[in-house]
């Protein structure tokens, strides 16, 4: 073919060829539009979540909701015939106490495990530990809740000689065990992201292994570790089934770890089934949903910014 390409006649045929779009050109176009729609769908879904949750809760939020009562009252009595009140203060303290205790459990252990896996373990051990941590992260939350009820509950009653074992302690420990594997994975990634040249430079200056870890690696991975903790907080905050089943689900401002509490998420899960669409109770549960959505959005945004901070640092 190319041998006889000569002269003006054929050059113009080349011009035609270079300007003719074949089916493959159009197929590529169509695919690129199709996958673009797929990509944008993530944005559509996140907006959709906000819109639809708001849509169901808006009537109530704009109408009957008393913002001051909502945030400062400890009385959550949505089913009261005469005088329903919608105060979420107790629910917030419930969520906060359980999440707080969970972080107390999860942060040291997950950071410790991440340091061990990233800095000390090697080869087979490292791989096995990582796989194990990944499997732990896979246990469904309803199973964790069940463990809280059926294994932790009697254990706590017996160990501490208390009347109920479904409490801040129970839910906190369960939630800690749930969040730890995820936090370990993220923290380990952050530690691994510290370039080996940092470690080598410090070692060349005669620093010992633990000095290298504490003085060089941890400070360098600081942002990633903070993001890991934040995501753990987000996870604990948003957890529903496990907290519902292990916390005792009683409205209470806790004064000790053995008190039963009720969490924001659990309240929605427990009550939504009994409400009629359009009722105030239904509306307030969706308003809670908006609240949860906004808070997690902020947590994720902060975590994202924190991680980006690492990127800029390098």
């Amino acid at each position, binding site marked *: 073919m190319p*041998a006889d390409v000569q002269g003006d006649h054929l*050059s113009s045929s080349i011009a035609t060829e*270079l300007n*003719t779009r074949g089916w493959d050109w159009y197929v590529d176009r169509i695919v690129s539009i199709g996958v673009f729609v797929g990509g944008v769908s993530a944005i559509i879904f996140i907006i959709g979540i906000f819109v639809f949750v708001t849509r169901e809760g808006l009537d109530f939020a704009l109408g009957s909701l008393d913002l001051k009562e909502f945030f400062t009252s400890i009385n959550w009595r949505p089913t009261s015939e005469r005088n329903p009140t919608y105060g979420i203060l107790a629910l917030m303290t419930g969520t906060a106490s359980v999440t707080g205790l969970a972080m107390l459990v999860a942060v040291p252990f997950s950071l410790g495990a991440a340091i061990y896996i990233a800095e000390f373990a090697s080869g087979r051990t490292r791989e096995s530990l990582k796989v194990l941590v990944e499997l732990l992260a896979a246990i469904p939350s309803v199973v964790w809740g069940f463990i809280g009820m059926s294994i932790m509950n009697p254990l706590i009653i017996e160990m501490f000689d208390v009347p109920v074992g479904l409490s801040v302690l129970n839910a906190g420990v369960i939630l800690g065990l749930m969040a730890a594997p995820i936090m370990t994975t993220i923290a380990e990634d952050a530690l691994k992201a510290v370039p080996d040249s940092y470690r080598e430079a410090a070692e060349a200056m005669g620093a010992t292994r633990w000095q290298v870890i504490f003085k060089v690696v941890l400070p360098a991975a600081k942002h990633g570790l903070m993001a890991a903790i934040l995501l753990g907080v987000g996870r604990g905050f948003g957890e529903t089934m496990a907290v519902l089943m292990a916390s005792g689900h009683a409205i209470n401002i806790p004064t000790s770890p053995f008190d039963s509490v009720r969490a924001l998420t659990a309240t929605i899960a427990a009550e939504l089934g009994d409400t009629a669409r359009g009722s105030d109770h239904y509306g307030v549960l969706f308003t809670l949903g908006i609240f949860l959505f906004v808070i997690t959005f902020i947590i994720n945004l902060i975590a994202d910014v924190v991680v980006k901070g690492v990127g800029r640092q390098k």
Partner: protein
Amino acid sequence: MVDNAPKLSVRNLSVRYGDKQALNGISLDVFPNEIFGIIGPANSGKTSFLRALNRMEEFDANMTVEGDILFEGQDITAIRNVYALRRKVGVVFPLPVGLPMSIYENVAFAPKLAGIKKKAELDEIVERCLIRAALWDEVKDRLDALGSLLSGGQQQRLTIARALSQNPELLLLDEFSIAVDPVTTMRIEDVLKELKEEITIVLVTNLVQQARRLADRTAFFLESELIETAETEELFSGVVKDQRTRDYVEGRFG
């Protein structure tokens, strides 16, 4: 030979990577059925020139190209189907890339894109291209082996075979012999001399002697500029205007 209309006509071509100027206002013509050599020290912009010819700025958000490139009189930045252009231009870059598919599929890839479906026809193309790339004898018994697991030199020749399988009108070679032994290099060079009866070749090379052996005309690039273009024999016999060119071909710098 040079009395035809140019196959390729470059005017005032500049290439930048971000703020870094890689090629500055190059103008030259390449005529049908010649081997056009490009020599020059490292970082002088030779590879960037070839990249611009295949419109590779589209793969690299950092790369910008200005100026005119006319392929058979057609401005390649104005065409509506860039894929048709790339199918007519075969390229071989110094880093060999065997695709992670069988050797056979590597070479049949471009013909299939061009719509060739008949097994016999594909077989014929695969064999012809592998023979021309001096790879056939080594791989003819294992055409279903993965192209990406061949040795570096074999992958280099596989890349050449792939470029030939496009049945290109313009073949752009960038230091094609970098990973190939001297004897095989000679065999491929002989093939190139035969090929120029059919197609036009632009040959970027670090080996000044390779340009002398193969190229009809040769351009000398230095620090993003085209210093001069001349008949290869003139360039090597010292009949050139620019002292820097003479120094370079005589190995006095770079």
